[in-house]
């Protein structure tokens, strides 16, 4: 369960922080170049966080009590491959579809 105080603290601070990131150069810093080494790091923030976040959710999910479930790993690989080749929406459909398919036949 997510408590009210945790939810509102996170939501409000996240809202302010996200706005400040978006507003940074447009509103506060104006028209100036980011140093190359800064943009080189910023470019990889999303690909640096998402895979780490996903790893435990795929390998030892809470709903199975932390047990490894090969069906979930196969479904995750399906999302990845379809996402590499096509787009996000097809990848999501492929991933959930694979999980349902495997569960239907192997329980």
């Amino acid at each position, binding site marked *: 369960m*997510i408590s009210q105080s*945790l*939810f509102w603290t*996170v*939501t*409000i601070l*996240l*809202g302010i*922080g*996200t706005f400040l*990131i*978006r*507003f*940074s*150069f*447009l*509103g506060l*810093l*104006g*028209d*100036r170049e*980011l140093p190359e080494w800064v943009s*080189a*790091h*910023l*470019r*990889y*923030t*999303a*690909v*640096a*966080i*998402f*895979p*780490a*976040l*996903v*790893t*435990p*959710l*795929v390998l030892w999910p*809470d*709903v199975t009590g932390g047990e490894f479930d090969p069906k979930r790993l196969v*479904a*995750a690989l399906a*999302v990845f*491959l*379809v*996402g*590499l080749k096509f*787009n*996000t*929406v097809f*990848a*999501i459909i492929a*991933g*959930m579809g694979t*999980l*349902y398919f495997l*569960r239907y036949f192997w329980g």
Partner: protein
Amino acid sequence: MQHSNRRVFWHGFLDCAPFTIIVVPYAMLFGVVARDAGLAVYEVMAMSVIVIAGASQFTAVALMQEQAPVIVILLAALAVNLRMAMYSAALAPHLGHLRLWARAVLAYMMVDQSFALSVRKYAQVPDMTPAAKAAYYFGALTAVAPLWYICTFVGAVIGQAIPPIFALEFAVPVCFIAMTAPMLHSLPHVVAAFVSVLAAMLFQWMPYNLWLIAAGLLAMMAGAQAEFHLKRKAAA
């Protein structure tokens, strides 16, 4: 708005319209997943209106469910949005002339798709007037940003009707992987993603979900270093 700029506004709107195919199901999925995590409909909506950034909303909900400390949740969810500082820097020379309130509005609604389209348009049409640039950007935003609210609401309302057999909790990792895979268009991106997974497995012993921050930092540096390395090799 002048007549010609109204046309440019609709140009931006129509150019961005195909992205609704991605935004609609993605927003609905957020509504569904957030309800599944135990949030009330008004909380889901509050989050979509206050934060209006899908990736960090998914990150925050997943980590709140894990009962991670506030600082870890904020660092991870904000890190995901840091790329938008780059967008802001890239847009400033084109839209910096607008009034402060207008810049605040377009900063609030900044999304990947409208940014990518606008910057491409400004490069293609170098003689665009500043007013036309602004009209185009606002048009592109209008095509997708309001849909984010509407479709999270729809998702939040129908979410409760989906039974547990559909393993909706698995939609969260599925969504993250589906967002990440298309981003892996260069070797440094692949390196960063690989280091990220490896570090996540090795750092699980860390308390307070700090493994996520450590893995993120390490992977980000790995990506940047790989990029520098490739550049040096190309120059040599």
